[in-house]
């Protein structure tokens, strides 16, 4: 049986999280201090894929190479990485695949750089082979997600709507929630399938196993530009033709496969996965070690379910809960950090309290400040004793909104 080729897409701009991506590429955004793209790369490697193409913008290719080397992932899982540089003009994912078609020579497992999970992709590949399908999309109903800090909206809405044949997992409709505007008329679908479940509980994780044949046909269709909005619907439609050989399936990620799965393309999901991934972080990214631990009896620091890098300093009698504190941070005494991400080089004054917030690189938080549900952008300063709630501190006056 021939092996599949891995395709890792690192060229996305991160348009759904502008507050974080204005000066860093999405694939390099840190999750617990590790650039995001290493997680899907590790997923591919763990699935035993040895031939991986990475689509990346030219400027950041050296950074990627450096990070991969630092991570020592390849020492554990030897593989052949092939960087394919893309220009800014390449628009949709399908366009990318079209333009660089010659590079992909076999059935491909396409993974987006925002797929963060400790789940194994081997069952998906097996499912793909067993069903002899044209396309298998990974969908999960347990994707971590939460309202983004700094926004007032409550629950995140559904991100994808889809139609699935419940018994087999065959996919008959897939559309992003935002792209769904007019009611759809179901007729051909119903001719082919007697029973269909319409649902919004799953997230499309942007992990697709695709037959090489289908990818080869891509180049012939001019008006397909986006993978999700054009190519998948095109394949799905083909299923309804009589004697069609095309079969599209959804692999519903079973709950026992992995603790954490996220599609970190929004701030909310990104924020939440930072906190959630800690359970399996040490296993996924062995090179980072176990982080700092404290002896409560000595300095009265209590830390639960948190990751604190070795180089960070934490003052006495602080409480740190379900948070991430990255390199070179200075956390004062008697501070409380809960459910938050503290990026590199942040200074938090004595007695401050940070709850459910993101504090970006180099920011400073004054003594006894109280921050809840906020994003503090790079190099911003929060004055002492201030009290902030549901805000984005970015030095610009007009507020940023979730949409």
């Amino acid at each position, binding site marked *: 049986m021939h092996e599949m080729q891995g395709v890792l897409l690192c060229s996305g701009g991160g348009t759904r999280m502008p507050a974080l991506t204005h000066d860093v590429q999405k694939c390099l955004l840190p999750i617990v201090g590790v650039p995001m793209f290493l997680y899907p790369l590790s997923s591919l490697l763990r699935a035993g894929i040895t031939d991986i193409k990475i689509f990346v913008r030219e400027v950041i290719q050296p950074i990627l190479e450096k990070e991969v080397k630092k991570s020592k992932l390849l020492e554990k899982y030897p593989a052949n990485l092939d960087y394919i540089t893309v220009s800014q003009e390449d628009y949709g994912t399908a366009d990318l695949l079209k333009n660089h078609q010659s590079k992909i020579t076999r059935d491909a497992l396409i993974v987006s750089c925002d797929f963060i999970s400790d789940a194994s992709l081997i069952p998906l590949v097996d499912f793909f082979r067993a069903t002899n399908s044209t396309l298998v999309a990974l969908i999960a109903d347990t994707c971590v997600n939460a309202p983004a800090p700094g926004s007032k909206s409550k629950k995140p809405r559904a991100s994808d709507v889809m139609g699935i044949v419940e018994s087999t997992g065959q996919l008959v409709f897939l559309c992003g929630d935002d792209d769904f505007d007019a009611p759809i*008329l179901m*007729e051909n679908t*119903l001719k082919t399938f*007697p*029973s269909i479940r*319409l649902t919004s509980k799953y997230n499309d994780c942007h992990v697709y196993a695709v037959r090489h044949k289908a990818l080869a046909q891509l180049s012939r269709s001019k008006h397909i530009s986006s993978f999700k909005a054009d190519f998948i619907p095109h394949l799905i439609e083909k299923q309804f033709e009589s004697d069609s050989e095309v079969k599209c399936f959804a692999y519903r990620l079973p709950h026992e496969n992995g603790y954490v799965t996220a599609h970190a393309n929004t701030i909310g999901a990104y924020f939440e996965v930072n906190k959630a991934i800690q359970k399996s972080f040490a296993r996924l990214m062995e090179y980072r070690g176990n982080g700092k631990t404290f002896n409560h009896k000595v300095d009265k620091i209590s830390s639960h379910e948190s990751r604190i890098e070795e180089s960070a300093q934490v003052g006495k009698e602080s409480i740190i809960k379900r948070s991430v504190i990255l390199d070179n941070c200075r956390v004062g005494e008697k501070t409380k950090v809960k459910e938050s991400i503290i990026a590199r080089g942040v200074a938090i004054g004595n007695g401050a309290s940070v709850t459910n917030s993101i504090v970006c690189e180099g920011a400073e938080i004054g003594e006894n400040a109280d921050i809840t549900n906020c994003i503090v952008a790079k190099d911003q300063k929060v004055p002492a004793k201030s009290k902030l709630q549901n805000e984005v501190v970015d030095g610009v006056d007009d507020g940023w909104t979730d949409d």
Partner: protein
Amino acid sequence: MTTAAAFKKPPKKEEPKLTAVLILDVFDQRFAPIHDSFPCFGTLPICNVPAVNFCLSWLMRTEVKSVMLVVSRLNEKHAQSVRNEWKLAFEELTVVAVDGATSVGDCMREVHNRELITADFMLITNPTSVVSTTLAPQIAEFRKRRRENPDNVMTMVYSNRENPEHFVIGVSSETSKLMLYPAANSLNQLKAEKRDFYEGVDIRRDLTHTGIAFCSRLIATQFSDNFDFVGIDDVVREILSKDDILGMSVHVEVLPTKDRAFCAFDYESLILLNTLLLERWFYPVTPENSDPTRFFSANPRNCYLEEDGDEISIKANTWILNDQCSTVSLGQNATVSYDTVILNSSIGAHTDIAQNSRIVGSIIGANCKIGAGCQIQYAFIGDNVTIPAGTNIQKETIVGRGVVFPKDLPAIHNSAVLKSPINEEKYEKLTSQHIGSVHVAKFRHGGPFWRRAVDGKTFFGVDDEGCSDEEETSDDDDVDDTTRQFHDEVFESMQKTLESENQVMRNLILEINSSKLACNVTMDEVARNVFAAFLKLPHNQQLAPTKDLIKKWRDLFINYYISTPESLRKKTADQQRFEIELKKKCQIQMLLSIEDRTEKDPEFLTRVPHLVHFLFTEELAGEEAILEWHGSIDEEERAELKQKMQPIVDWLEEEEEDEEETDEEEE
């Protein structure tokens, strides 16, 4: 406050038992050819047992203690005989005879008008409904829903079977609420909206309705409020399309696969039901114990013989030993000769079958004579039919009562062979033709008698298709097809009414409502298009005739645009407010249709103020509606219209102020 009392069980309240309303007739012209033999569908023999017996037999096992047999007046005597046979099985078994019933709707209206329904009831719209269970879990589920929310007005029972019509429904996977129901003219398609994805709707065509529904009293009220409703489908569509207004919901209960259920609606399904019953799928509902007055013996290979003390006469070798026959029911004194093969069939009493014939999947009536060497496959044959030796009857043929089947009859597809011509006035969908000694009847639309759906598509009358052809020619913009179709149908109905001598508004309203149901359009669209069609009439090209016609057709406009005191009186305060609000919206739609008209016909513009003023004085358009509409007119694009309407609006506003002043003075 939590006290000990809170933990005590609430005093158990015995829920009243459901009453069953069983409709004994089927109102489908498909069954006209066998009307002479079996005038009442409920007593049509299946396995030589009147069909309704199976239904009563399973009803007897459920909690139902009181049954209402609803039947058209003509068939009252059949219902009475059923009653006499079964009255001991139930505490109450009554017959409700309805004069001139032509639909399930007529029956329900009569039942409602006589105030026979006092509580929740079980509605069985088809007398051939058979289920193998007591339905206890489904009834309990219905009660639970009713307790949770009294607006859960109906639960329909479906069975797991792919339906031949590919009728699709959308059911919420979590709450079993019916979310999507297809329009009457396109059973195979549904429109899914975003909320359906959020709800997790299952779209299924692998379910079949069993003809059983648990209903609240409100369902009966729905029938009597809408005198054009024909069947339960209409009520379901009404409830779903007015989801936000009525706030009622319909649920679907799917029987587990171990429970069987079936109901027949055409010949194909009757034959299938016959076979299923003979094969004992619905045990304990079986042919031999479903008839309280006759005795059937059940024999190996699913053979059933009716016995009356006299032995069935069997010629030559007993055919029971002939292992080519199986799954057969034989009526009293039926004679079957040697070497005949009978499979999956029922043979009526006193019927004589000569040797070497082959009968498969057929129902044959009483007193028939079937000659030697006949081939009868998948046929429905009435009483007193003679079939000469060596005849080969075309598959899927229906033979009416008393026919002497001509041997040389040419094969005619999708037809029924009758002794006398079809009464075309009574059955307007059918036509018949004289061929040799018999008459051959067909559907005017060319569809088959045998089955309702062909290749998963249900056959609709010619009229529907005719409309869709016209529609293509007149299509000038992207208006929704169904809305356009509705508009055209209304326009046509209005023209017809205008030409007719006594312009009966009731009939016109009926026609418009049936178009509305067929096209599945919303209330707003109805309001807009009815008036648009009215304005389009050639008669209304001048102001004076328009005014006259509005006066003359006042009933029509009252029906669609204003709430009359009579209609309000019956309702609660909330409903009244709602009704008034709704009619205001309708009035705005009427004014919008006037606005639309000005676009197509610039000349019309000059007449608008007069027309609107006239509508106001006739009380067909309220002040609020006019003001709201005027506010919505686009100032740039429709400047002229807005300007022309200004004086009237000013005048209305002045009047309002005056009124207020007088009010104050009075106070």
